[in-house]
């Protein structure tokens, strides 16, 4: 079988890493694309893969199977659209689109054309979080009422000049860069929240964007979640995302390394989970892929995308555009709530209860 031709567009931090993994994939012939600059200079003299400097020119001149878009977030929507219109499968870095109206439109376009369309929310490929999702879906801890989603890390530690990652209009900032990950996991577990309240997008060192995020998210048929994220925290070596859930039958905790479950009573169909604590490690929950660069999850998401394209699938297995659109919407709700101070979305009013007369010791 001939190799798939895949172009990686944007050679920044994520783009370089995607390019390295895709270029090493046995089923792929990789191409790179980035505007003129240091990386293009250096790589064009040192690697054998062709590098295009102009995206439109590349789309016009090259027969491709798929593109991987890893440009600054503002450029995602137009680049994804151009690729879909050429009939190419698309893997787009997160966040998907800064305006969720674009996200919805592109989701529909990809579906209409029957293309594999995936977004790089790699946390869904971390074994411990995937296990958490499986446990939630199996009803392991009963009705979940209490959720705490967090992410911390050392990105902006002092006042500094801006890059696109720290420019809000470009899709930078702690909300888009960091909070997007735990939010995407909450969307996976519970869907788009019905209401967002109590949001705070705070600045610590940055001038033009947020360095910390708090928010309260409500699902009418699900839990209430609190989000706490900060990228100006040097006590963490790198980004650390974690989720705590409490339900009527116990508690779940997951981070990149492990999934800890406490069940009050065992649940039918969940092998190996007795009452009390059960701990599963990401190391035992993941399998090796063709190439390892920074963690199995990065390889796994690209491998699934590539295999879906190779096998002629018409949609992504995981992280399809529709699911990333949920996260784009959730982030917009948080921004609107933080800017106006008004609740965004409707929480269904609790069923009215007849007023009860209570005495001090009445039950």
């Amino acid at each position, binding site marked *: 079988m001939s190799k798939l031709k895949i172009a990686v567009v944007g050679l920044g931090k994520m783009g370089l890493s995607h390019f390295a993994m895709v270029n090493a994939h046995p089923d792929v012939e990789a191409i790179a694309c980035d505007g003129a600059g240091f990386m293009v200079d250096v790589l064009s003299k040192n690697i054998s893969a062709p590098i295009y400097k102009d995206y439109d020119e590349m789309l016009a001149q090259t027969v491709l199977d798929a593109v991987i878009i890893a440009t600054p977030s503002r450029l995602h929507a137009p680049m994804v659209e151009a690729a879909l219109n050429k009939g190419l499968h698309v893997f787009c870095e997160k966040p998907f689109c800064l305006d969720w109206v674009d996200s919805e439109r592109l989701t529909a376009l990809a579906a209409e054309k029957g293309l594999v369309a995936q977004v790089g929310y790699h946390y869904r490929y971390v074994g411990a979080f995937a296990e958490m999702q499986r446990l939630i879906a199996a009803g392991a801890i009963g009705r979940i009422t209490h959720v705490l989603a967090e992410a911390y890390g050392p990105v902006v530690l002092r006042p500094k000049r801006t890059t696109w990652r720290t420019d809000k209009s470009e899709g930078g900032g702690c909300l888009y860069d960091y909070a997007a990950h735990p939010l995407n996991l909450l969307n996976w577990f519970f869907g788009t929240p019905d209401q967002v309240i109590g949001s705070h997008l705070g600045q610590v060192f940055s001038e033009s964007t947020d360095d910390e995020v708090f928010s309260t998210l409500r699902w009418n048929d699900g839990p209430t979640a609190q989000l706490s994220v900060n990228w100006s925290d040097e006590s963490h070596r790198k980004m650390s995302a974690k989720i705590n859930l409490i339900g009527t039958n116990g508690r779940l905790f997951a981070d990149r390394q492990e999934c800890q479950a406490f069940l009050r009573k065992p649940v039918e169909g969940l092998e190996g989970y007795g009452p009390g604590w059960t701990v599963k490690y990401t190391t035992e929950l993941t399998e090796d892929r063709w190439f390892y*660069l920074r963690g199995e999850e990065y390889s796994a998401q690209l491998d699934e995308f590539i295999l879906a394209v190779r096998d002629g699938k018409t949609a992504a297995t995981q992280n399809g555009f529709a699911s990333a659109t949920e996260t784009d919407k959730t982030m917009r709700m948080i921004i609107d709530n933080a800017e106006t101070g008004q609740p965004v979305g409707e929480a269904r009013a609790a069923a009215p209860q007849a007023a009860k007369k209570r005495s001090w010791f009445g039950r």
Partner: protein
Amino acid sequence: MDKLLFGDNQFFGINHMSEEKARAQAMRFQRTDAVMQVLDTAYDAGIHTFMCTTHDRIAEVADRVKAEPARYADFQFYPCMPYAHKYANAVTEHGMVGALREFMPSGGLLATALTGATALATKEVEGIAKVLIDMEMKMFAGTKAPVVFIQNVFTDLLLGMGFTRAFRIFDDHIREKYGAEPAYITMNMPMLLEALERGGIERPIICSNINKIGFRMSGGFDSYLEALQSGRVRAVAMSVYASGAIPADEAIHWISELPGVEAIVFGASSAGNINGTKALVDKYMGGPV
């Protein structure tokens, strides 16, 4: 190479199983005294090689070792460069070129080359690479550092991109300027070995996961065994216990029977674990370590 090398993950809050344990270790080892205490235990047990990241904290360890030449007569470092998070965080903060400029001596010709006014010449790229290597090596001046590794994230990024000429630049520079053996850490050993050979680098020292259960042996367990049996690689095995999944005795016994494995690198913070691993290596891999 010694048969047993002491690693440094435990000192920097790196634990593949638990962030809680990682933080507890980061707390315990934030003072260099605590690090030295463990290194002394290892040294006195006869483990004389410290394979370590070029983390800022290691500079303090190097200073201690230099300060007591009699106490640490046989102490040697195997530096592993670069400390990747330092660069990754800088790239997020400053962008690619901005980050590089951060690490370049200011005002120099290479810093000027990075202003982006003109395309970088191949020679300038080589120059920048050498300056970066020299910056990382600075802390080891005056110590014994006979083997120098590239960290796996960098090795594998270059390998994946097909930028294998960089290995040649590293190889030549480490030999010529430091009189040391260049070496490579990778998560993709069979693929790296082929790439190095294509670049004319024969029988390289490669450190990779090698363990009985094939944990994080990307490229496949069988290809690792083939590469080892072929005699084309001088292997250093890491993750021999597969993060605790394999009992120590069984793990070391299995490794000892593999051809091509010249050394094991392991990290530990208790005297019990240090002496335990040392005893097993003596038992199965024989002779003085």
